[in-house]
């Protein structure tokens, strides 16, 4: 049996375009996606919208860690979100969507459902 990969992957930029421990924003199928590269070269993608301020700014937050979890802090009011799950670690119950992201042939690709 063949399993079809039905997700649509969109190329957003070259991997080298991403600075370690900073984010960029991309426009994918009408959604604003924040893409982050951590110091070990891993990639994460969250919705760019900060649910607290309603501004599309998460890509411009400071990347770091809390315990073992890689994080980004909203540049607006500094709430910290897990890059892995999108959950806000300062305000239980708040989370932002996470998207799949991968590197193929040096291109960063994001899947937005």
């Amino acid at each position: 049996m063949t399993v079809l990969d039905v997700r649509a992957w969109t190329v957003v930029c070259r991997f080298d375009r991403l600075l370690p421990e900073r984010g960029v924003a991309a426009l994918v199928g009408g959604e604003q996606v924040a893409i982050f590269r951590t110091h070990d070269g891993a990639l994460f993608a969250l919705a760019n919208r900060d649910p607290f301020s309603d501004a599309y700014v998460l890509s411009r937050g400071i990347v770091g860690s809390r315990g073992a979890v890689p994080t980004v802090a909203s540049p607006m009011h500094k709430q910290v979100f897990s890059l892995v799950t999108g959950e806000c670690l300062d305000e239980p119950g708040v989370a932002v969507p996470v998207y799949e992201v991968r590197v193929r042939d040096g291109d960063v690709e994001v899947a937005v459902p």
Partner: protein
Amino acid sequence: MTTQRQLVVVGNGMVGQRLVEAVRQRDPERRWRITVLGEEPRPAYDRVALTSYLTGTTEAELGLVPDGCYDGDSELVLGEAVTRIDRDARVVETSAGRVVPYDALVLATGSRPFVPPVPGADLDGCFVYRTIDDLDAIRDRAGHVASGVVIGGGLLGLEAANALLSLGLSASVVEFAPRLMPAQVDQGGGEVLRRKVEELGLAARLDTATERIAAVDGGLRMSFADGSSLDTGLVVFSAGIRPRDELARAAGLAVGERGGIVVDEACRTSDPSIWAIGECALAGGRVYGLVAPGYEMAEVVADRLLGGDAAFLEADMSTKLKLLGVDVASFGDAHAATADALEVVYADPVGGVYKKLVVTDDASRLLGGVLVGDASAYAALRTMVGQPLTDTPEKLLLAGPSTSDLGDDAQVCSCQNVSAGAIRSAIHDEGCADVASIKACTRAGTVCGSCVPLLKTLLTQSGVEANPALCEHFDVGRAELFDIVRVTGLRTFSEIIARHGRGRGCDICKPAIASILASLGSGHILDGEQAALQDTNDAFLANIQRNGTYSVVPRVPGGELTPEGLIAIGEVARDFGLYSKITGGQRIDLLGARVEQLPAIWKRLVDAGFESGHAYGKALRTVKSCVGSTWCRYGVQDSTSLAIMLELRYRGLRAPHKIKAGVSGCARECAEARSKDVGVIASENGWNLYVGGNGGFRPRHAELFASDLSDAELVRLVDRFLMFYVRTADRLQRTAAWIEALTEEHGDGLAYLHRVLVEDELGVCADLEAAMDRHAGSYTDEWAAVLDDEEKLSRFVSFVNAPEAPDPSIRFVTERGQIRPADGAPVVAGPTLEVVRR
């Protein structure tokens, strides 16, 4: 071995569960065998946090029953209500026909929401808000309808209304009383609250009685006493609670006239082997609808069951909560019920602040108060209830109390009932040196946390070294980190954190280290790894605004601007459609620039001879000045020239916080220099230097540091002062707070600075001056450097895959001929609501 006695607990709610844990803790020999009978189908959960269940918190996360809590000596029976107490046979019967004997019986049955006898209140689509099952039902219904109404504008009603908003419904609140939260706030506070709540998207109908609810096509129609009506998809009743005393009533135990099982100080009912705790109990003539008094009752009964003599006297009903992002607090005699009490009120309806203190008729003692919009003084004020006033009521209202004169018996933590004396003894006798250990030792600050600022103050006052750790990644504070970086010569974050910290940093330590590196002169702030350390303002060399756009502020040294310069700025503003405003620091602020516009804007400004104004940085901001002796008929010195000289010397200096300065040409002080970190005022014989002033949240006047200085002497002293501040202050500590901290450490902070910076007691002055000379000598304009660097420029894009496309979420409307951000959806401080944890 003695035989075990049998304890039966009716109700596995918050308080019933606490009782089990309290007994287990005090009863290591297992003298009691415990059976808990709970009617709900699930073990006890955190009802206080119930609303978070709608925004993603799971049932398991809300759970309050620790693993292994029920073992061989205790059992928990769920989904079975107790239907009868047989006091003669000393047994209870359950809905499943189980008969359980008891030696001691504790009723912890809580309360049920009161549903007023409105015709139609039992229709499909009408709900109450108390259990997880209630919320499941509300969520189901919310999926099919567009709006909801909450009947009752009290604490819980507002929380429920916010929950409806978070479910995507439009929501309104109908309240019988003329104001919201009638039990907690007075009319003035209620008015401020209503405005704030309406700004956030919640409609409030006050003074409104609901007469009838009827089913209409696809929903419900509510009819009100004034003849009007409202159609809605669902109705939630939140009109108060009633104690669940039916079992007790049927068993012939004494109950109050308005409900509640009567208990004495021991929480014992009229039958000595039956106790009642939590919301079902009427203690001291009062039913407590908060969890903390219930917990206290549980502790009392646990103690009594094991032979103690603890008593439940009276609980503090003070509340502080954040409701839809608005701080609300009330404490003591908030409604001025005491005979002849005086009320002192401060109201700023525009700013959304309302504060009231209730004092005795001679204004000698504090009785209570209400705070809406700004509840920062709550913790300290609450402890002063009943105590002599330490200041005039007006001062207490505006500035908040000082904590130094907190008596030993003042209650600091009302949730766990801990006094200032107990905390002082934990610090001195138990060696608690930080807030965490005080919490562990006294339990103060562990429930609602509102007293944590007081705990910190008590620690500082006790002279105990507060834990200096910057954050979870570094165990040292900023000053120590500065020395480490300076001495070791490490110049990258990765090296610094690898050697002296752990993890990958955060929004606290990264900007702190970025600032330290910048103060030590490490090239452009966006070079290499430094780029990843900067806060968004420094990363884009502009100030982020609430809609994600940025403001642009060119440097205007001393506030002196040529007509050509003014025209150039005006043209840039016009061509990029920016909002223009004059700042308090004599600059021109251009707002509404999108990230991708910043380089083009700055290209124009740099070409016109401007440079970065560092309005975005924790750095020297402005040196404000008057026209001085050059023009002014009163001026005694040339304040403008001095201001320009100082601004050009210290521009770009990165510091623990922003630095502002001012120079006035005579004692009339038109430049408001004494509200600055560094203030210079002309005297007949030279310059007087003032330090440590600031405006803002806690205004402070700068204090005189040295008088009659020449230009050169002044510059040397300011060099030393600023560089010493840069090296030794804490992160985000303005000079005023730094000097206060020096006072705590060395006695008089200003005198200490005089010894170090004038008398050179530590022998550091030459080094400080040299460091400042290096700074001034190596200054370059950050923006000009970015414009010359393709790689850095490439970061100024809206989208990495559509660099020129403007962010579609940014929208403006026009007001008084200029743009301003369009108001979008209501901004709620958080989908979950922190409530009434006292």
